[in-house]
């Protein structure tokens, strides 16, 4: 089940979309970078760690600021078109 719980600003949406796209880019780059290519590999690992941290920090900061509804088995999703935030749970308990 999916429930609308709030909205972020366009600038905030742009921030998380950039991080989302970067994570995707790093994931696919990881498939082709050789561990022996030391410099690029090190840079990739460090960037992935940093991007993940910034990604989770965005959700932590936004959920605290907007006080979105939450449940223990759920997670939030963002609709990049509308900037809407949805609470999603798999067991239909909403």
């Amino acid at each position: 089940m999916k429930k609308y719980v709030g909205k972020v600003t366009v600038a905030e949406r742009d921030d998380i979309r950039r991080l989302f796209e970067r994570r995707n880019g790093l994931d696919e780059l990881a498939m082709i970078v050789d561990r022996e290519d030391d410099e690029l590999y090190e840079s990739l690992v460090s960037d992935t760690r940093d991007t993940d941290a910034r990604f989770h920090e965005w959700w932590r900061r936004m959920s605290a600021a907007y006080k979105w509804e939450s449940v223990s088995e759920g997670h939030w999703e963002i609709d990049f078109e509308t900037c809407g935030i949805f609470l999603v749970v798999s067991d239909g308990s909403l």
Partner: protein
Amino acid sequence: MKHITFIVTKDCQLACKYCYLVGKNTGERMSWPTAKAAIDYILGNREIFDDDGVVWEFIGGEPFLEIDLIDRICDYIKREMFRLGHPWFDNYRFLFATNGINYGSAKVQAFISKNIKHLSIGITIDGTQRKHDLNRIWKDDGTGEERGSYADVLRNIPLWRRQFPNDGTKVTISSEDIPYIKESVLHLYSLGIRDVKINCVFEDVWREGDDRLFEDQLVELADAIVDNGYYNGYDCSFFNERIGRPLDPEVDNSNWCGSGRMLSVDAAGNFYPCTRFAAYSLRVKRPRIIGNVRDGIDLNKLRPFLSLDRTTQSPGKCIECEVASGCAWCQGENYDAALTDTIFQRSTAICLMHKARVRANNYYWNRLYRKLADEGRREEFENKRKSQSTQSFSC
């Protein structure tokens, strides 16, 4: 988004009758050094390519005939964008328009799984087998017999639908295709293709009476969409609420076509404002080369494209047209059909077809809204359309 197109080959397995690529051949294949030089130039000149994001497109001929080269190009692009700290690393797509024949091959599938988060792939299927095979035929194998490609494409459609459920198909309508429009769109819907981008060719191929036949087909299609509820979740680009209105000469004066804001590179390393300006796309005119991978872009040659507006290129009848909005044009076809070597003369070969489309489009929306009103769902439908989102991503 910057749109950069690699013409990786001018070869194709098919010989579609309506194909605008008049100069297809098996000889012109892009080499790796040319592709690399193009990428190095583009990524190394941020002051020219200053867009927020990029679509790297691969076309042919049939692009997947060069899957090894494409795979190498995409790997290099990803590495270089990351290594250079280029902003496009956070905002890029790889885009393909394919005939679908090689889609299921091991190499193409390996490429897809490596890049799936950044891929958009459209498979061209024209509709029913009868319609598809009317135009999309295999190259002559020496027997002189015409052989359609429908069955060879269809076997890959389920896999494509699973991998890219949101990607649509592009259908091109020429004079001979008009009687099959309705059945073709409905057939594509039945295959699970929810987004059908469809348009009339811009070339002057239309015969007397085609506009009436076209209008009749679209009205029948409108009835089928309304009666069967396809307006929920399916799309056909012929029907659009924004078309068919007069345009203000000052406010609505932008160019329709994106040529010049795009960049194409061919096997010889020449740059074009769009693929339609390469030699193999032109019937009459000389290719319009705006630079090459060695010397870069001649920015003077881009100025006409970037300063081109609607009214400067349009004849009086278009400027005064009461149903002008949504009437499209292709800059390359305008150039090819113009009396002189200019991009500033708009071809109006589709004028009657556009007007027919507008009449059918008006019919569609009037019928749809009446039906929704009768069912008490008009407001709900309009609100849904306003807030319609195309995708949502799980975080």
